[in-house]
């Protein structure tokens, strides 16, 4: 069949999308790509270095450690926040004034800016003037996030759990509200246990919101910067130095723009890969056998 082309004006209609995508994603990303394959001194003095920076980044043991630390951190907070968020959602009241009150209370941590969260916990955890720190020392625990790596880790994790569990809880709460009452009635008729109700009615209906929740929390936690920077500055030593902070140290602290750019690209690809693997696995699990 021959299609007669009248004119090509339709292309103008997709132009805005091209422009937006170009300016929001492609051009900034290409800048990074540019830096990652060249050694740039000034706009007129630059040398093509090929995969040099990538090799350097891949072999950097400090970055290996930061990457490991980063994975450990992301999985820890996910392992805590997801179950905890579901529990909170299950316990939140569904009717009356209690429901609105619970929603507001749960949502409060989400409204606080990142650097303020860091500051809050920095003070909260101090043994001299902080409530948490003072409480820990009063019960005889030698707690000091500024000098002890374990305590620093604990504080950073606790801070994130406090800050972001509400997001999972709210997502799950909305998911739970969407389950029709008749499912619970049918389950009672079928003599299902509380666990069976959760496992076969609530959890399946929460899958979709949980996918969004886990993806959001993984990406955000994998890129975490502000809170640990304010709270511990990456220390003690480099025990709470995560990938973003390493990147910033490299790019702004040492002004090694080449390796930093290569690092950024690898960083970006890791996040993309993990999200893709996670999403495809979940989707495959849901498919009809």
């Amino acid at each position, binding site marked *: 069949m021959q299609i007669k082309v009248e004119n090509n004006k339709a292309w103008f209609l997709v132009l805005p999308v091209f422009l937006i995508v170009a300016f929001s994603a492609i051009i900034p990303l290409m800048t990074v790509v540019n830096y990652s394959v060249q050694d740039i001194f000034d706009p007129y003095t630059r040398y093509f270095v090929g995969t040099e920076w990538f090799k350097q980044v891949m072999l950097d043991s400090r970055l290996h450690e930061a990457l490991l630390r980063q994975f450990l951190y992301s999985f820890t907070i996910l392992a805590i926040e997801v179950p905890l968020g579901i529990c909170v959602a299950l316990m939140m009241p569904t009717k009356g004034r209690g429901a609105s009150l619970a929603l507001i209370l749960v949502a409060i941590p989400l409204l606080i800016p990142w650097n303020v969260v860091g500051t809050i916990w920095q003070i909260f955890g101090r043994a001299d003037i902080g409530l948490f720190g003072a409480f820990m020392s009063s019960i005889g625990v030698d707690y000091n996030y500024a000098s002890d790596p374990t305590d620093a880790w604990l504080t950073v994790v606790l801070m994130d759990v406090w800050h972001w569990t509400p997001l999972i809880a709210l997502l799950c709460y909305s998911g739970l509200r969407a389950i029709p009452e008749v499912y619970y*009635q049918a389950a009672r008729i079928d003599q*299902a246990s509380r666990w069976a109700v959760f496992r076969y009615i609530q959890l*399946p209906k929460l899958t979709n919101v949980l996918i969004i929740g886990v993806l959001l929390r993984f990406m955000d936690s994998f890129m975490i910067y502000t809170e640990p920077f304010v709270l511990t500055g990456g220390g003690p030593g480099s025990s709470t130095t995560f990938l973003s902070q390493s990147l910033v140290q490299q790019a702004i602290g040492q002004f090694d723009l080449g390796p930093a750019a290569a690092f950024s690209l690898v960083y970006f690809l890791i996040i993309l890969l993990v999200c893709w693997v996670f999403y495809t696995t979940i989707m495959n699990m849901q498919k009809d056998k």
Partner: protein
Amino acid sequence: MAAITLNALAHTYTDNPTKPEDYAIREMTHVWEQGGAFALLGPSGCGKSTLLNIISGLLKPSNGEVLFDGKRVNELKPEERNIAQVFQFPVVYDTMTVFDNLAFPLRNIGVPEYKVKSKVYEVAEILELSDQLKRKAKGLSADQKQKVSMGRGLVRDDVSAILFDEPLTVIDPQLKWKLRRKLKQIHEQFNITMVYVTHDQLEASTFADKIAVMYNGQIVQFGTPRELFENPAHTFVGYFIGSPGMNFFEAELKSQGEKETLMFGDHEISVSNAMLARLKAMGANKVTLGIRPEFVHVWEGKNSDAFHVDVDYVEDLGTYKILSFLFHGQVMKARLSEDQKVPSGQIYVSFPEQWTKVYVDDYLVEVTDATVDNDKTKEIPHAN
């Protein structure tokens, strides 16, 4: 399997009920016998689903008791009552396979796996789901999902009764018919008490041996489809059952010396003398008369016993025609058989005495020796 007795049962959703209208279920006593197939028929909002949920235990009645085989079960939770309930919208456990869905109620009560297997296969066979057992329930069509919901009620040996809450609402018309037949078969095979809630009289009469007609939170009549048709105990039954419903008109009891007559305007409507005596004894002056369109006699020619009325219009419904006529200013309907001549202009109609029903305050007035079907034991449940 059990007989279900509702004893002085009433239910209200308000905290301080003061008038009868506050009750979703007005005080009623009713028995569903063991092994019967019953329909609970009524318009939306008449309390059908409320009544069903009270039987299954999902709702606690405000007053009265629910008895299974004479044992009070008010305090028992639904899971302890051994009741199966199929809801309007199919409920399946999405992530499970069809097999696991059917096995679910059995596994919940700890039935050994080999028994689960044989029972599930048996039920799947009956419901024609055998080739779907390995599929995830999520991907099933609406009617298959509804079959799975029903199947979960059938796998258990211990169910006292299966309650259906308008289960075929979301099913396509052709499949509706098939599933209804399936239910009927299952009923014959298992001999379980079944209560089927619907607002569709055809569905009710094809499924059930006996139909309870519900209106404003009360069961106004409980009888076979034929009884409901021939002898409606309440004006609502006359109106709701049949298509079109019963013709109703108000008549007055007038005394002329010793003799009583029932007058509709200046027309005398003939009823038995026993009925006239009964009405007089009741002191009822105003009565409602009802006659089914099927029983209105349309005369071809002039007839001195018949009333002279004006034809309004004739509706052709394919196999039969519905004649609308004006009788003393009131529109009434008569059903014409296929071969009957289509009348026009002025015609003559008469109301056979045996099919002219008399209602006082919406309830049927019966005179035992004058009833047609000789069913003297039939009770008319008065709920209030």
